[in-house]
């Protein structure tokens, strides 16, 4: 019993200095800047970020994963956790943007919009069954009325990053991916893009929640929802969350 108490004590001292962040993969570049701000404001906290699939994080947190703050690519996931008493303080921090992306040297001109996809042989999107960007891409294609004609030519990535990989490696000649990806350092020069108008798909609102309520998690939430954070996110291809 004493030993158990000691272990718990050890854990709690650790979480006092360390904050495990579960972040949606599309935040990979933007979040580094935001974290450095939060860390500067709160030097006793050590932020450790894990990027991954929001859905997988949901499953893991549900089963006791030691994450302290959850930055999802979706608003419903944090709410599910809150409904089950696993999280608190939901917040919305960004809205994702969708682009049509073609690799450099492709005959397809993205400026023509989604219609240009009629010339593409392979179109990469994230899997619409579980990836929000995939669902958005399908919605946009439907809105333009070309979904049925392009459906046989779709290749599905496990997530939006993999869809981008299909395009970047030249195996797909077009892709519908997150703007945050095509603006990232490694992919900036790989292709050209055209933003798909936001009205063609339901908004990709990204929300989060605190799993543990500590100064460190609150600090990060505050930074990410502050004007400063929103400005950083905007640079990385996110729009402001509409209040």
């Amino acid at each position, binding site marked *: 019993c004493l030993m158990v108490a000691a272990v718990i004590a050890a854990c709690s001292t650790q979480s006092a200095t360390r904050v495990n962040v579960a972040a949606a993969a599309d935040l990979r570049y933007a979040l580094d800047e935001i974290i450095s701000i939060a860390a500067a404001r709160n030097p006793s906290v050590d932020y450790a970020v894990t990027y991954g*699939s929001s*859905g*997988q994080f*949901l*499953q893991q947190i549900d089963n006791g994963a030691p994450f302290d703050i959850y930055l999802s690519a979706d608003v419903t996931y944090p709410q599910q956790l809150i409904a089950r008493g696993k999280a608190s303080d939901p917040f919305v921090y960004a809205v994702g943007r969708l682009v049509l992306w073609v690799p450099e040297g492709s005959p397809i001109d993205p400026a023509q919009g989604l219609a240009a996809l009629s010339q593409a*042989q*392979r179109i*990469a999107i994230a*899997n619409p*069954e*579980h*990836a929000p960007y995939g669902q958005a891409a399908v919605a946009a294609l439907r809105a333009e009325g070309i979904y049925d004609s392009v459906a046989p030519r*779709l*290749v*599905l*990535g*496990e997530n939006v990053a*993999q869809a981008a*990989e*299909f395009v970047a*490696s*030249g*195996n*797909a000649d077009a892709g519908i991916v997150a703007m945050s990806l095509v603006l990232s350092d490694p992919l900036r020069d790989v292709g050209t893009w055209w933003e798909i108008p936001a009205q063609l798909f339901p908004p990709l609102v990204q929300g989060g929640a605190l799993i543990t309520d500590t100064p460190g998690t609150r600090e990060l939430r505050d930074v990410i929802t502050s004007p400063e954070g929103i400005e950083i996110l905007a640079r990385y291809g996110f729009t402001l969350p509409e209040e």
Partner: protein
Amino acid sequence: MDWPSVRLSLELAALTTLILLAIGIPLAAWLAYTRARWATAVEAVVALPLVLPPTVLGYYLLVAMGVQSPLGRWWTEITGAPLAFSFTGLLIASVLYSLPFAVQPLLASFAGVDGRLLEASSVLGRRWPTTIARVVLPLSKPGLATAAVLTFAHTIGEFGVVLMVGGNIPGVTRTISIDIYDDVQAFDYAAAGRTSLVLLAFSLVVLVAVYSLRRQRTRAWSL
């Protein structure tokens, strides 16, 4: 159940197993019986695909098959269709990735065959393909079964490489394992559980059948 995926998976696994036995048997025989020093290096290289995470291996394969690589261009020229996101591409990837699962058990089994029988075969004037076919293989049934089972099961269950190289195209490259994975990702646990159960039950039947074949020797006495 997504039957096209099931069919695809079975086809892929069966073809991969066949191809890997066809490649693996001579390769393992060579590795088991050669005296060349560098065979050890070859043996190690065969096991290397295992060390890379499937998705990463898949990524490299994707690049190798892509239009930017000579292989990819050559293939597209010859066949008129790109290798990536095709069943053939999937097959190549599966074969590469499962190579150690076929070669290693075969090799271990071959190495255990009584050397005097190989000697007898040679003195009786037989070339090594005959020796392998008529002496080594029949005496390596457990290893053969292991190689086939590991390859087959692993190909059924694999999804990292397949997802990367195949692009999850329904009916073309969406295998049953991707299907289950998608269900879990979409929180459709009921569907995932159902499919898994069917997959497990089917595999159990296949495995029991394979193993029964192998367990033909009735030993009068056990340890």
